[in-house]
């Protein structure tokens, strides 16, 4: 199993009380999975993603990635884990404007000492996401959809085992959304596990598993039979 | 546009300083009249000398930097000719600076930069080698004019060389683009 969480809890303090943003989550993801986690805003899905990425420490429970409990690692080791095992596509705009598109994609390769050069790999990834011509462009010259594709290419530069995306299509139009989701589907077919958090129901059909998050609790659902754009969903959120 | 303006203005300023500096801000010594017997007494008269006291020297004689109105032939110091030469070179550098702003073509500006560097070398050689200045360590031209011209021409040479290198590289990049 690539990823396994057991009894994962993350509590936040609000005034004098504490509340669990993630409340006893058990999750297993294998390398063939393309998992969509759906839920309304504030349900705890982004917190779960950040716990798995090692950006937050859990209050209790464990997170095993390829058998290693990442919640007990120090900053150096968890950063290396995040750099090499995980590809993370953050919510919103995250491409650095002081670097070219090519340098943005290459950047994670150089954050740790590695042999070789990332240029060829980066150009190949840009080609796969349809941005080969814009390698030397400044991010200021790109559209929202193009920037999202740069983030995805960047996330793949170190051949991660797991690609995580936090609401990757939330600020995009329908056509661009469809293009991005097709890209994710291709990446999944190439053997990279995907864990995607979204509140857009029309994107869940691209994966093979659907989970819902509600008030910190994760529930596995049946994958909708229809493709997005006309699907009827067998689940609804609590009012 | 930015490169044209910045480099052009820089050389305009340097040129003006090289041209008029030796006449104004860091002036050369000027012209000194020759020391004939008659003139010596003219220059030193006015002091009363006694056995117990001394003689107060004449102020003009001490300074030796103003042009003497007394009749007779004059010895024009080297630094005077240096200032004249630098006037011409400085004006040339200033004009080349203006041309740097006026011309858009990178190749033309590259040529102008090479010309500026060579003019800078000439501006450096005039006071140091080709003509020179007074040999006395405390004369104004040696204390002030010579180091000022050396620094200004050094800056002109360095800036011109850097500008030429920058233009050469950016022109090559432009040509390499499909």
């Amino acid at each position, binding site marked *: 199993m690539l990823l396994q969480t057991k009894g994962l809890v993350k509590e936040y303090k609000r005034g004098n009380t504490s509340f669990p943003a993630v409340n006893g989550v058990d999750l297993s993801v294998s390398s063939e999975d393309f998992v969509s986690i759906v839920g309304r805003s504030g349900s705890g899905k*982004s917190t779960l993603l*950040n716990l798995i*990425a090692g*950006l*937050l420490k859990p209050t209790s429970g464990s997170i095993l990635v390829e058998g290693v409990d990442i919640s007990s690692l120090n*900053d*150096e080791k968890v*950063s290396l884990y*995040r*750099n090499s095992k995980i590809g*993370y596509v953050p919510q*919103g705009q995250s491409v*650095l404007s*002081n*670097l070219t598109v*090519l*340098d943005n994609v*290459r*950047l*994670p*390769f*150089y*954050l740790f000492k590695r042999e070789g*050069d990332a*240029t060829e790999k980066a*150009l190949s990834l840009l080609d796969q996401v349809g941005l080969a011509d814009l390698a030397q462009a400044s991010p200021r010259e790109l559209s929202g959809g193009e920037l999202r594709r740069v983030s995805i290419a*960047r996330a793949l530069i170190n051949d991660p085992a797991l690609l995580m995306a936090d609401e990757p299509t939330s600020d995009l139009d329908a056509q661009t959304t469809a293009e991005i989701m097709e890209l994710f589907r291709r990446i999944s077919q190439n053997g990279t596990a995907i864990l995607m958090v979204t509140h857009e129901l029309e994107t869940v059909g691209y994966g093979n598993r659907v989970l819902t998050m509600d008030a910190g609790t994760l529930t596995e659902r049946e994958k909708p039979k229809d493709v997005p754009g006309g699907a009827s969903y067998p689940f609804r959120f609590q009012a | 546009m930015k490169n044209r303006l910045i480099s052009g203005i820089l050389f305009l300023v340097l040129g003006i300083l090289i041209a008029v500096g030796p006449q104004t801000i860091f002036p050369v*010594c000027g012209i*000194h009249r020759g*020391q004939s*017997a*008659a003139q*010596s*007494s003219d*220059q*030193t*008269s006015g*002091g009363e*000398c006694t*056995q*117990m*006291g*001394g*003689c107060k*020297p004449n102020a003009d*004689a*001490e300074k*030796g930097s103003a042009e003497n109105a007394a009749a007779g032939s004059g010895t024009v*110091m080297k630094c005077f000719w240096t200032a004249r030469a630098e006037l011409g070179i400085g004006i040339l550098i200033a004009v080349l600076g203006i041309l740097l702003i006026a011309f858009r073509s990178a190749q033309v500006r590259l040529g102008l930069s090479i010309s500026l560097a060579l003019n800078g070398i000439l501006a450096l050689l005039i006071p140091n080698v080709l003509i020179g200045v*007074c*040999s*006395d*360590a*405390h*004369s104004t031209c*040696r*204390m*002030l004019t010579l*180091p000022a011209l050396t*620094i200004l021409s050094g800056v002109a040479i360095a800036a011109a060389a850097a500008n030429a290198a920058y233009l050469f590289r950016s022109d090559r990049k432009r040509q390499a683009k499909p």
Partner: protein
Amino acid sequence: MKQAPLSIRRLSVCNLKRRPFRTACHIAVVAVLAFVLFGGSILSVSLKNGTRSIQERFGADLIIVPQNYDKSMESILLKGEPNYFYFDQAIADQAARQEGVSRISTQFFLITLKADCCSVPIQLVGFHPETDFTIQPWISQKYGRDLEDGQLVVGSDVADSGRKSLTFFNRQYPIAARLEKTGTGLDASVFTNMNTIRSLFQGAKAAGMGFLSGTDPEKSISSVLVKIDSHYDADTVAHNIRSHISGVQVIKTRSMFTGISNTLGSLPVFLYAISIALWVLAAAVLTVMFSVTANERKKEFAVLRILGATRKKLAGILLNESLFASMAGGIIGVAAAAAVVFPFNVYIGDRLGLPYLQPQISVVLGILALSLFLSFLVGPLASAHSAIKISRAETYLTMREGE
């Protein structure tokens, strides 16, 4: 396609280039600091060197000159302004007999309004090598033997170093030795023995210097240099001389040096105080600047954390940026200061009117190293707090700010 690796160093440089105005301000602040540190230190040390030089070189305790010519004498010694004055040789004999006087020596001054070497008047000093104790010791040190008739010993600033002779009043005199720089008026003087100065005097008279007609170098002198007995103090001996010999002024060299030190004394302190104040100000300005910058760049650093940058690396990026900008500023400032204090050092000394002697190369290098170190340090020190804050920020919360 060949591309340079994207190291932390290159990333820092890219960040600096992205904000040219801010980077330029940082460089400018540090450049001004480095300019004052280096330039001020060289100025201060040169002035101290000059004062020490004149104290070391000048062996006389008292100098007797004609009445009202004490300032002229000081001008010769300190500023190298040529002067001449005379009184009777008999005064020297009278001075030698005063209580507390250990030894004396006399000097004869002449000026030449023009020599073939120089565009400004030259001070000629005739002295007695057999009795002199001010110039002779360092002539012996440099030249190693007695000065012969017709020979000159010149100060470091007289004519080009390649000259072998000087022509005065249509006669050529060979240069026997050139003395080391003292930073005083003695650098602009020419020294000869009494036979040579008499020959020069005749030449000057023949050249029409009519003011000398009443003077006879056999019977006239310009000054009497006095060494006092160790059991007496300068004030007492000076008083003795003044009370027994009329028409003279007695200069106490220690007072002259104290006067120089007093004039000088506050200047180095002032320069150091300015340097310290400027360093503190630069650190404060840069600290505020980095604090604002770090705040603006929170999201950028959060993205770097997400991509796998360690907290140490984040801090390293900011510290690198501040170090590079400080290094650029430090080098520019020091270079600008060097372009002022070294080429113009003679001019500076002349304008200050104080003994001015540039330090040796080893001292200059020491001052350079210290100035650069302090300049390079100010940036990283100012950014340290922001760097720590950035590295400790909660990435998750930073990314969600503004939602």
